[in-house]
């Protein structure tokens, strides 16, 4: 009984891991943003389909910070709330390019299978 549950969970993580990183980097392309802002942006731009949980978002942000794809600094928001803003680095842009090309290759491959 415990086993399928475990696998289901793992699938979700795996699906999200690469794509979430790519989506975050893409979001940061338009300007630096804090965690909440990123999650809002992903939500609105996906037409409320993608909801990123804090439990996935922040670990991802910190992991990417460690890879030096993004950098962080504390700033004030327009509402005068102190928040940690992330911006994309040069390395992050390169990573985004790699992710996008891989994504489009994969999407094309999947599409061709589905349409065959």
């Amino acid at each position, binding site marked *: 009984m*415990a086993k399928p549950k475990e696998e289901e969970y793992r699938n979700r993580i795996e699906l999200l891991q690469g794509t979430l990183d790519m989506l975050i980097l893409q979001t940061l392309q338009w300007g630096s943003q*804090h*965690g*909440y802002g990123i999650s809002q942006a992903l939500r609105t731009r996906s037409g409320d389909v993608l909801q990123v*949980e*804090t*439990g996935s978002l*922040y*670990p991802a*942000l*910190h*992991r990417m910070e*460690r890879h030096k794809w993004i950098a962080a600094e504390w700033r004030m*928001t327009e*509402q005068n*709330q*102190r*928040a*940690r803003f992330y911006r994309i680095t040069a390395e992050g842009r390169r990573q985004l390019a790699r992710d996008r090309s891989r994504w489009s290759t994969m999407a094309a491959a999947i599409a061709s299978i589905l349409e065959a």
Partner: protein
Amino acid sequence: MNLSWLRFDRRKAELDAELDAHRRMVIADRIARGESPAEAEAAVSRELGNLPLAKDVARDTWGWVRLERPAQDFRYAVRQMRRSPGFTVTVIGTLALGITAAAAMFTVVDHVLLQPTSYREPARLVSLHESDGARQWDVPWPDLRQWIEQSHSFQQIAFSTGLGGRNYLESGHAAMEINGASVSANLFDTLGMKPQLGRGFVPESPTYASKNAGLIVLSDVVWKQAFGSDPHILGETVRINDTPYTVAGVMPPGFQYPAVTTVGPHAWVWVSYQLGPRDNGRDWNSDRLHVIARLLPGLTVARAHADMAAIQNRITAALTDPEERKQASQVSIQRYDSTLVQADLRKALLALLAASGILWLIAAVNVTNLLLARSTARQREIAMRGALGAGRGRIVQQMLVEGLVFSLSAAVLGAALAFTSVRLLGHEMSLRLPIPVPATPDSSILLALLGLTTLTAVLSSAWPAWIAARSPIEPALRQGGMQSGVGRGHHRIRGGLVSLEIALSLTLLVACGLLLRTLYSLRHVPLGYRTDHIVVAHLDIPSFRFVHRDMTQQLYLPLLERAQHLPGVQAAGLISMVPLGNTFVIHFEMQLNSNTRIVSYMKAATPDVQKVFGFKMAAGRFFNDQDTANSQPVVVVNEAFARLYSPDKNNPNEIIGAKLLNMRSTPAIIVGILDDAHQGTAVAQPSQPEADIDIRQLTPDVTFYNALEGIAMDLALRTSRPALEMTPNLRQILRGASPELASANITTMDEIVEDSWASQRLAAHLLEIFGASALFLCVAGLYGLLAYVVTQRTREMGVRIALGATRGNLLWLILRQAGFLLIVGVIAGSALAFASARLLRGFLYGVQAHDGWTLTVAALALFFSGILAAYLPARRAARVEPMQALRAE
């Protein structure tokens, strides 16, 4: 590290602030959309989910948590321990008991068997002897010279020979008795040791004109005691038995060669061996040399053996005397370490180490059982942690840390107890162990202790941890309560563990029983002489004071005369070693005729020794007043001697009248045969051939005079007064005879007999302690299991009574379970005891290793103590009030 921790704390605070900011922004947004603040708060809590887990996962990406968590677990474990002090004390006490025994035994084994010497790379040091295949001898110089010249297996070959007799060192500062050896110039180099002061001997190959002549190297003990660690000692002159030497070095503390001192004091000096014309021969007049060599790196003993065998063949081919050729026919090569400890002692120590290991295992199993019980009781707590997001690995890790904290505390306590017990048992051990065991930890002991601690933690808590982590979360949370079900499998595991404890305990109890029966048998062996009311003084003879004097006339007979007139003394006698004395034995060998070679103990005695000990004669007479320096020399032998060497094998008494030794110009005649007495060094040994000579017939010109009179002598007194009262008077006359004798060791014959089975007694005492502890632990384990089972099944018991079960039924229900565990344990234990008893065989006397009675008694004792332990919980089960039990919870 410190800085890193600071940075880590800062980042933790930052993460908290970041998530807090997130939360506030969500709330602000929701309020802006028109929700009330309270609604917004609630919605956010729902939406954001498990924030602490998110923090944990985020922190995980920093790679720091691996360090942070054990610290957290440690604090948590300590908190848990303080919350249930009773449980904590039980667990730590149990583990400490096991660790104490194992650590104490390992300390002994480490000092005596693993690293008895402090020499560099001891594995490459070997002892070389000539041998006829059965016995072995030290090596005469002509052979050794060829070994040194022709062998290709050794980096260095060194040799030594004892100074012999009693040796006294005198200098301007002090005089003390010392032990000495004359050694080759390269001995210290071969051992890999350097003097702490001075350069020692000048390196040179063995030569007849040595540059080292007249040089002496002191041990640290001598340097401290005789010279107060004087740093300007080099070049000073000291006298050994009146011969002057110049100090050339002082060896470091702890250095000793030979590594074991069998006779005399531990204070050593080394002088340079001087080759002389007599070394060219191989008769009794020339020294035989003790050879120690360092193997070339990587060379095995077997390879060296092949090398030496070829050389030895050439040597023996040149020998003419068949006896000499036989004695030199082989070369025996042994690791130097392994020559220091006799095989049966080695076996005994290993058996005791194994016994302590068993006790440790019982303790660990007992704690496993306790922790299993507690993990059941903590099911809810663990389930709660699981529900809050703790992973399985996290829970296992946390419980392992708990186990480690337990075993670390136990190790600290156990180590302290172990060293205390080593100190307390010091006297017993010094009687039988060739190497002193200091009660201080060294690196290998600490390492072993650390390993033991970790192993204990893993062994005792891994299983409970695994079971705890594996158990499903939901049922535990839903049901709750103490009586929630644990699987049958779980019970079976705990039952199995208790049976294992019982089996291991039985093994120890049987071993203990066998040794107690051995002690009983030893105490009841008819010795063949009286031991009561005898006071014995062991005298180390300062022979250098009597160099040109007749010790018989000027030391022994006057001393005996005065001793006889001490108040309370009924008879007084001198004998070179009292029976079972274990001080100093003299072997002599002689060719009786072409096919019989006599090998026998030899002792010197006075006639009154017979009155003191009540020796009985099998035939003939003992010495009497007619035997004097001028009368016919006589010898008294024992039955073992007569049986072996009588001219008529069927009639040992025929030996009376035979000529045996040449004393002065007249051959001595055997005049009597002593009843076989247990005169050797141990009661368990069969009687060895022995020949005695009357002290009054020993004059300085007799061959054995120096060996028999110049080294050790026992003065034995039959008294009507207690030994303690005799001591002052006795010391006074000893001091009068020679000042050095005042410090003689004075004891009683009863004590000497008692000490002769010291090794059995030591082993029996240790096994009594191990066995009692094991019994206690396994009874406690059984009680713990059943008490727990009864608590768990209270409701079931209530139902049973409500349905008409009698209290007797319930009592029987629990006792039956206990009986089953006990029987399984006893059966397994009997098999284990049967298999392990062989280890003890060399230690036993008067009882078989597979003794049915001992096994039966031990098994019954264990069984009934177990049933007694089971009775208490069983009675509690039988007294359950059905209504209360059903209402409980």
